[in-house]
């Protein structure tokens, strides 16, 4: 896959300062990576390797202490609708119905109600949530909340979808379903995805490429290609796929620091 670079992270240094205790923690240092246009890139690494901080820098939530983060050659300075984020905590607005949550981005850009409801319904259909359109977030299960959050981001037509351990808080069964749904949805709605996870299996199942980070401060330890055809990505069969098993085991060894890059 030789697509053009969508997001470029060069020599990124991110720091976290605990103001109450006056402690400075270095999350990433000298981190360099590219996200290619329309690829599904997963970033894995042990806890505290700065992978969520990396996502925050690309989203524009946090400012780099050193290095640059740019999209299409322009530096990223603040959050924007071109980079929609899906959070582990779902982050749906409790005072809006599911339909209104999914239409949020369209409302913020001034789209009329009838049109944004129509678009939102289409994305609720894609995420199997049409029956929940008039419900409020507190009435949904964790899996349904995360489906709604994905629909909210996709309905806003971002150029990049940034996903911060989105399935870490749902139960194991639901997680498998959501992963398969994400494979299907992404096939039907291609866009650039940066997916942060601590689960190697999840990364191999979802990604075109995987970036393995070292323990904090995070740097790139290895880049792993996942050339498994997307139509073979079903949990019922993929564990019998030797390619999947080999990539998974190698990536796991890389994450644990047992194998040199």
């Amino acid at each position, binding site marked *: 896959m030789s697509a053009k670079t969508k997001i470029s992270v060069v020599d990124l240094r991110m720091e976290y300062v605990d103001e109450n205790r006056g402690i400075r923690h270095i999350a990433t240092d000298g981190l360099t990576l590219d996200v290619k246009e329309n690829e599904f890139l997963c970033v894995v690494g042990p806890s505290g390797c700065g992978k969520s901080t990396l996502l925050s820098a690309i989203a524009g*939530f946090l400012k780099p202490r050193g290095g640059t983060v740019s999209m299409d050659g322009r530096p990223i300075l603040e959050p924007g609708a071109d980079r929609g984020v899906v959070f582990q*905590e779902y982050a749906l*607005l409790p*005072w809006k119905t599911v339909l209104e949550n999914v239409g949020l981005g369209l409302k913020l850009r001034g789209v009329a109600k009838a049109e944004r409801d129509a678009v939102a319904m289409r994305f609720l259909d894609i995420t199997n949530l049409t029956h929940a359109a008039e419900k*409020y*977030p507190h009435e949904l299960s964790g899996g349904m909340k995360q489906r709604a959050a994905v629909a909210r*981001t996709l309905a806003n037509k971002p150029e990049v979808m940034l996903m911060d351990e989105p399935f870490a808080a749902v139960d194991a069964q639901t997680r498998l379903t959501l992963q398969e749904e994400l494979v299907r949805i992404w096939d039907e709605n291609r866009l650039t995805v940066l997916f942060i996870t601590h689960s190697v299996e999840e990364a191999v199942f979802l990604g075109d490429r995987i970036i393995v980070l070292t323990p904090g401060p995070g740097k790139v330890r290895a880049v792993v290609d996942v050339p498994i055809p997307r139509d073979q990505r079903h949990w019922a069969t993929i564990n019998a796929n030797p390619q999947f098993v080999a990539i998974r085991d190698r990536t796991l060894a890389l994450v644990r620091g047992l194998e040199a890059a």
Partner: protein
Amino acid sequence: MSAGFFRLGRFRVDLLAVLPFLLLILMWRTLPSLTGMPEYMFPTIGAVWDKAVELTANGQLQDNILDSLGRLFLAFLIGNALAVPIGIAIALNRSASDFLRPVLTFLQSIAGVAWVPLAVIWFGIGMGSVVFVIANTIFFSTLYNTVAGVESIPKVLHRAVRSHGGRGWALYSELILPGAFVNILLGLRIAMARGWHALVGAEMIAGSNGLGYMTMEAVQWYQSSTIVLGILCIGCLWLAMDQLIFRPLERRTVVRWGMVRQ
């Protein structure tokens, strides 16, 4: 949960909620005669009823109620119109917080009836003074609840709205006001209750009409039935406001949203 209910027009009334009122009436009916309290110290139900009929017939009661309610609503508007934006500014802006918090804390301790003497000098006896004192009280009730409400909005919701294109005024209408609404509503309710206290206090000292003035004036003539009538009106009006405005508002918003349990 409820022991049963009956319908009063389109309103549902819980029997359990009515019981304490019946008990109060029973005590009122029996205790004065049992303890030998003379009627000028505590009037009978019949005397208060007669007074209510008399003051309604000559229009005084309605006038006083409308005067008090008018002041209360005017002060409610003024106090909240100042408190909500200032509260949001304090919660979101470090400089605004550093600048305003200490002086507001200082002023909070003297909020309310303590201002009556100065208010009388500034505005004279009547409307202006009373509204000033109530608005002052309401301001501080709403202010600190607004600050707490805005500060309670999770950071991840700010991030979610901003990464879906939220900026400028939309952040206030889509995120900050609804996100702080649980606390703001709580604040408005406390503000209204305290507003009633301030209203009665201010009218007693600086009023020329209204329910508070009516009860205080009655003292000069030992009109205990007027005093008790005034107390009953104040209690009933606040109860009605709470049940007809604040509770339904709460059910339709923060309870519906799952942000508070009922």
